[in-house]
């Protein structure tokens, strides 16, 4: 018997193609000079959000756990990598190589935090897990805000009080300056790198899902007890999904940090609002649906900017769009309607009609 595994690969190829097409379209608009500088500034963050949405979807959609601390992992990745890049900006003059190492460091740091948080937290379920991860995100953000690191001829100095208590020599340089964060991170990110990272993220997540490990992760989501009864190690696979997701969020943080000259841990970028926003991308795009995550992340990031002309009504329309999208995606009536008018069905109907003739 022949299996239709090709259908799955085809579906994945469409997703990759979609991202590449998006890149091509933006490039065409860019070369035609049709993109405002404001929009240009949004391109890298767009990739950051897409990566975050895909990685969170791995936890929420595939592993079936609600995590509200995704911005925390992004924060870890951002700070670890920005710190590294700032220290080595003179040491490694090649931007590409420096960014690659920074990327690995950021992802690794976030993965380590993912494991550390995951081991105790993944014993909790549902709401409890959500609350603990939420708290974790806030803790990371607040720690980043009181972290002071400097370097002088004697080496590195750390403090979680203020810059003075670092006791540096006069030749000392501040590397991380508490609430003022890290200034002077080399701007190594670009839209191209962002898109490449999105593709890598997709590659990792989609291939993980369609493998032995992905099956194990999803079987735990569907039925813990049955998964255990066929010999699947619950802790291992939950932790795997959580850690991979954290590492990818860390990578998104690296991209984010290297797009800004000043990196601060504000509630706006690493706070709980951010975590919720990523979750909104995932839920609107369809839980477990990676392509949907990409589309909703792109739309919802661009929308507020596109609506800028409407000034005061901007956020009103934004929220209405959210509600409409939610209804369109999830209400039973809309699902029915979508099924009836889906291009696939219309096509097969035509085919059937022809065969009858």
């Amino acid at each position, binding site marked *: *018997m022949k*299996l*239709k*595994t090709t259908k799955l690969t085809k579906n994945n190829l469409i997703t990759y193609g979609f991202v590449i097409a998006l890149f091509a379209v933006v490039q065409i608009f860019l070369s035609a000079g049709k993109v405002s500088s404001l929009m240009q500034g949004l391109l890298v963050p767009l990739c950051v959000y897409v990566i975050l949405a895909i990685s969170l979807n791995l936890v929420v959609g595939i592993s079936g756990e609600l995590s509200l601390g995704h911005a925390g992992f992004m924060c870890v990745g951002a700070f670890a990598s920005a710190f590294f890049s700032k220290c080595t900006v003179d040491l490694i003059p090649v931007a590409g190589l420096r960014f690659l190492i920074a990327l690995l460091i950021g992802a690794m740091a976030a993965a380590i935090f993912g494991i550390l948080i995951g081991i105790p937290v993944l014993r909790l379920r549902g709401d409890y897990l959500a609350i603990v991860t939420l708290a974790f995100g806030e803790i990371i953000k607040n720690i980043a805000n009181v972290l002071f690191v400097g370097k002088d001829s004697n080496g590195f100095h750390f403090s979680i009080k203020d810059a003075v208590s670092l006791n540096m020599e006069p030749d000392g340089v501040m590397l991380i300056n508490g609430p003022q964060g890290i200034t002077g991170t080399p701007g190594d990110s670009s839209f191209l790198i962002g898109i490449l990272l999105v593709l890598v993220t997709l*590659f*990792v997540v989609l*291939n*993980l899902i369609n*493998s*032995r*490990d*992905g*099956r*194990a992760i*999803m*079987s735990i*989501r*569907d*039925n813990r*007890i*049955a*998964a*255990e*009864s*066929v*010999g*699947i*190690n619950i802790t291992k696979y939950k932790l*795997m999904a959580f850690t991979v997701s954290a590492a990818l969020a860390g990578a998104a943080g690296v991209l984010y940090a290297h797009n800004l000259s000043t990196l601060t841990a504000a509630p706006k970028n690493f706070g709980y609002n951010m975590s919720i926003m990523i979750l909104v991308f995932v839920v609107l795009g369809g839980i*477990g649906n990676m392509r949907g995550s990409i589309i909703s992340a792109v739309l919802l990031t661009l929308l507020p900017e596109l609506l800028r002309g409407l000034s005061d009504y901007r956020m009103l329309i934004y929220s209405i769009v959210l509600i409409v999208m939610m209804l369109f995606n999830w209400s039973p009536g809309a699902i029915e309607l979508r099924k009836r008018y889906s291009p696939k069905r219309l096509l097969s109907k035509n085919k059937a009609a022809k065969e009858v003739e």
Partner: protein
Amino acid sequence: MSILEVKNLGISFGGLRAVDNFDITIEKGQLYGLIGPNGAGKTTVFNLLTGVYKPSEGIVLLDGKDITGKKTIEINKAGIARTFQNIRLFKGLTVLDNVKAGLHNHLHYTTIEGILRLPRYHKVEKEMNKRALELLEVFELEKEAEQLASNLPYGKQRKLEIARALATDPKLLLLDEPAAGMNPNETQELMKTIRFIKDKFDMTILLIEHDMKLVSGICEELSVLNFGQTLAQGETGQVLNDPRVITAYLGE
């Protein structure tokens, strides 16, 4: 040589003695039935055997190896697989993937090989598909292989659960009320399937069942539980005619 040897197994939940002094010996290739009125402790015995509960006392030997109080995963690796009274499938996965999840510990490749789609991934996945389809064919589910498990009709879901359990290549298969919710025709077919599995895989089977037709039709030996105590044990015909068993089921 006995596959399963259980001695003096017992567990209490608070003040309730759910299973008390339970003994059972199952020989290789036997079809053994565990019956008893509702609440007698049959499923609790299954949960004790598969490590869902830790027994308060007693020992469980599987093929001569002590597996008392081990974790569910280890017990599955040691060779006990089960199905559930209320069907527990991986509903978001396809029928094929449900069986492949059962093959999890038998065919390996690393995470990296999986993500990078290295040659071993393709080789092992192919082998997995082959084995899973073979199993599905036994249960006549191969046509539904790529449907979601939740879309299967009830009887086929029961079959799929057995197929998944068999995929873990057990020495002993525990079936928890396999005929529950089936109509007489489906039950008849199920009896055939169970006999077929027993012969084809040379499987030892312990099953809980309420359907007396099925029990008397296929079980060679029986244990009867009542209020956690073993009421009777032995050859099916004898046990079913035991006045104490009849009393337990039908009342005085």
